[in-house]
């Protein structure tokens, strides 16, 4: 081990103390504690996971029902969440001011019941699909909708059993862009169809189901036809 630390100043000790404090707080923030809530378990994917993991525990010699597993998860989740919240609370203003944190759930739960953004233009000649994820036309609308920050809005706030309020504003925003480029259209429909993903060998592909449709009329956005 390197021992070339001949004279450590007071500042060196203070800095090491500050760094240690920062490290401890960051590690506590980063530890993936199971902060489960009831609404998390309402998700169909979570229900499937409960069944799968309880079966595995039962096979391993510890008989467990999905309900018991859910209850244990909720108890632990409540405890873990409270502990983290209490310790990190004094630092919250600093975290908010700097937008920093350590939540790294990157594709933690790939969603087999995924969504597909579809934008339909409705005009005198009928309905035309202007965009359907994952696109392929390479036009301006596609470039816009596939920009990561815009995708974040509909994929995060819209692609869920009950879309958040921003989904309506997103629909309005998309409609305004579409109307500007298509003066012939009288309405735009934005929706997030349910698109079940079935891996090979686990069943036949299933048709998409219409979901979360929002129709925006040209008169709604205030630009004349």
């Amino acid at each position, binding site marked *: *081990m*390197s*021992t*070339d*630390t001949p004279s*450590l*100043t007071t500042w*060196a000790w203070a800095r*090491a103390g500050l*760094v240690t404090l*920062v490290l401890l707080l960051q*590690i506590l923030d*980063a*530890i*993936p504690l199971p902060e489960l809530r009831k609404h998390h378990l309402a998700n169909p994917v979570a229900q499937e*996971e409960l069944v*799968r*993991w309880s079966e595995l525990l039962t096979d391993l010699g510890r008989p467990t029902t999905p309900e018991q597993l859910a209850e244990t998860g909720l108890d632990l989740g409540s405890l873990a969440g409270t502990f983290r919240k209490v310790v990190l609370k004094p630092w919250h203003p600093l975290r*908010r*001011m*700097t*937008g*920093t*944190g*350590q*939540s*790294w*759930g*990157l594709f*933690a*739960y*790939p*969603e*087999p019941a*995924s*969504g*597909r953004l579809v934008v339909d233009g409705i005009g005198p000649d009928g309905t035309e699909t202007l965009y359907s*994820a*994952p696109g392929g036309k390479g036009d301006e609308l596609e*470039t*816009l909708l*596939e*920009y*990561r*920050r815009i*995708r*974040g809005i*509909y994929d*995060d*706030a819209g*692609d869920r059993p009950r879309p*958040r309020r*921003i989904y309506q*504003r*997103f629909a309005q*925003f998309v409609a305004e862009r579409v109307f500007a480029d298509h003066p012939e259209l009288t309405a735009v429909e934005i929706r997030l169809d349910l698109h079940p*993903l079935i*891996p*090979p060998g686990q069943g036949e*592909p299933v048709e998409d189901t219409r979901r979360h449709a929002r129709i925006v009329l040209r008169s709604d956005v205030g630009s004349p036809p």
Partner: protein
Amino acid sequence: MRWWVGLWDRREHPRSLAAVRIGLSTVLLWDLLRIWAYDLVVPLSGTHTAGGIGVPESLQPSLWFLDLFGHSAGAAWGLWGGMALSCTLLLLGVVPRLAALVLVLLYAQLAQVVPAADRGIDMLLRNSLLVLAFANSGATWSLSARLRHGSFSAPADLRVPAWPRYLLALQVVVLYFAAGVSKAASSWTPVGGLNALFIAMSDPHFQRWPDEWLRAVYPLTRVGTLVSWVWEWIAPVMLLAWWYRETADRKGRLRGWFNRRPVVELYLLVGAIFHIGTHFTLRLGIFPFAVMSVYPACVHPDALAGMLGKLQALLIRPRRT
């Protein structure tokens, strides 16, 4: 205890920190320019009354940016412009610490305007920028160095505090390990059939290749799922490798094995292959490049100089023959 205090008191050449500075600011500037190019400055950084998608004016406590500059579209342009300017200054290495601090504060405001538009990678960028606000990352490969030393590169014997690089390197370990542990869905494990990567690659919002192609390479996606899951879980191997390098004078077969091999560099190489691979199989935006821009922090400046020297030799050799 003295070792721990001494560790954070060390000094080294600034090239690794400079590489992170250049990488991060380039990626972020590219992203900011895309906001401008797609005419999204006001929709993504403005109030709802100014034409924004979000409703930041309803936030409590309110955003200091809105308190200072108002709710007009001009304020949105101010937020974006302030970020673009500070990002450019950081890239050039002009007042880099101040630029990084201003950038991270404005970036945090932008994050709250439309929270859903702010992704995990933005948080990594802000974490790293906050560290750069305390680092002497502009000491080399910068306009500051040009002004101070008459060259864009600082003298080889220049030394700056090393602790910001250590923090950034730890950030990489924490990022991967926490991401690995968070992957609790059974689809990441043999229990769930290792379907996670296939599902992610088939998600229409991230999909880059047609369904038929994905189905044809399904077995490969399962291998990829296992490899990426294991690779994230073993991120602490970098900590072990650094510890073994630090204690190279001690005995031990495993220590010897580690010290004879570039374990950290190999881990990062696999990471780079993984990220570049995901860039070509998934639409992830700046994610792969933003993560890789922090990689130089994991490499000692002397080792980085060696790598760059080898790369230079490789690039120059074909011209000579």
